[in-house]
């Protein structure tokens, strides 16, 4: 049985949300201050909520009886199809906030467009997610501005984070055969059309943050087809441990 484009597409959306949500959860108990500890946990839970909705729907589309847990806990790294950006390590606080800004500055206009999908379920999930992503943009942007326009050290770290992560932003806007089929069917938004919105958001924040936007340069790619950095394996080892060791364990 070959998988349908809609299944693969929905799975990508789910994997993006789960992996980034898990990354944020790694901060819980370790954030610089209590307020930010809760903020990062909140952002993570928004994403994990989105992941659940997408996984449930992906399982229905596939029709082979896999539920959200089977899709999240029982697939190996090569079967994960998240973009490389979301699996990048938390690094310092600037790296985490920069990664969040890059992702949410894309995801916010993306979900805004996905609300108009001909697929009613994707449109409904997007309608909920769009408000969450708007807050993610606001929170991460305010931090990037304060770090960039802060002390010498915070500026240096924020610039470093931007330079390190920029190479993972190109993949957000790629459209392969899977996506093009769905764009033509009116189910998926054309991400190329979201580029201007992303660029404007990043330019505004970087101007205010006194940060240099990295040049276009070489863009990493492959996560959506299962070619990942070594980081994803470590994420899944922790994320999937319980279900791998005690299959079927429940709360």
């Amino acid at each position, binding site marked *: 049985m070959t998988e349908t484009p809609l299944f693969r597409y929905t799975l990508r959306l789910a994997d993006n949300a789960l992996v980034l949500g898990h990354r944020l959860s790694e901060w819980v108990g370790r954030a610089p*201050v209590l*307020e930010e500890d809760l*903020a990062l946990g*909140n952002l993570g839970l928004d994403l994990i909520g989105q992941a659940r909705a997408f996984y449930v729907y992906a399982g229905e589309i596939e029709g082979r009886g896999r539920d959200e847990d089977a899709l999240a806990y029982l697939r190996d790294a090569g079967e994960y199809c998240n973009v490389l950006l979301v699996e990048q390590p938390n690094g310092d606080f600037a790296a985490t906030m920069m990664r969040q800004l890059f992702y949410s500055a894309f995801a916010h206009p993306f979900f805004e467009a996905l609300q108009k999908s001909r697929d009613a379920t994707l449109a409904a999930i997007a309608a909920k997610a769009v408000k969450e992503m708007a807050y993610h943009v606001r*929170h991460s942007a305010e931090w990037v501005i*304060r770090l960039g326009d802060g002390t010498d050290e915070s500026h240096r770290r924020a610039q470093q984070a931007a330079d390190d992560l920029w190479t993972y932003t190109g993949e957000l806007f790629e459209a392969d055969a899977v996506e093009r089929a769905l764009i033509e069917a009116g189910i998926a938004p054309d991400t190329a059309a979201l580029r201007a919105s992303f660029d404007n958001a990043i330019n505004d924040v970087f101007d205010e943050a006194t940060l240099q936007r990295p040049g276009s340069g070489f863009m990493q790619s492959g996560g959506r087809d299962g070619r990942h950095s070594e980081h994803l394996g470590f994420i899944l080892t922790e994320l999937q441990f319980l279900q791998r060791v005690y299959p079927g364990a429940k709360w």
Partner: protein
Amino acid sequence: MTEKNWPLWEVFIRSRTGLAHRHVGSVHAVDAEMALQNARDVYTRRGEGLSLWVVPSSAIVASDPADKDLMFEPTASKIYRHPTFYDVPDEVGHM
């Protein structure tokens, strides 16, 4: 690394059913915008509010606990200020 504390802000929330903002606690934040975000993240996680205020704690002028008697004692003997001596006609119902 500096260990200086960020400024403290007092947080007020107007709930779904409430008419006025109520004090709920405080947060640390570098400035007003972040104080608002921190208040949102710390105090409205369970759908508590429809509106948020944050006020720099330093802007609050507090009465001195040592002045308690001078400030509040005189009212104790003025029970006629409590509206409990009126007969409420039945037609008024529950007030």
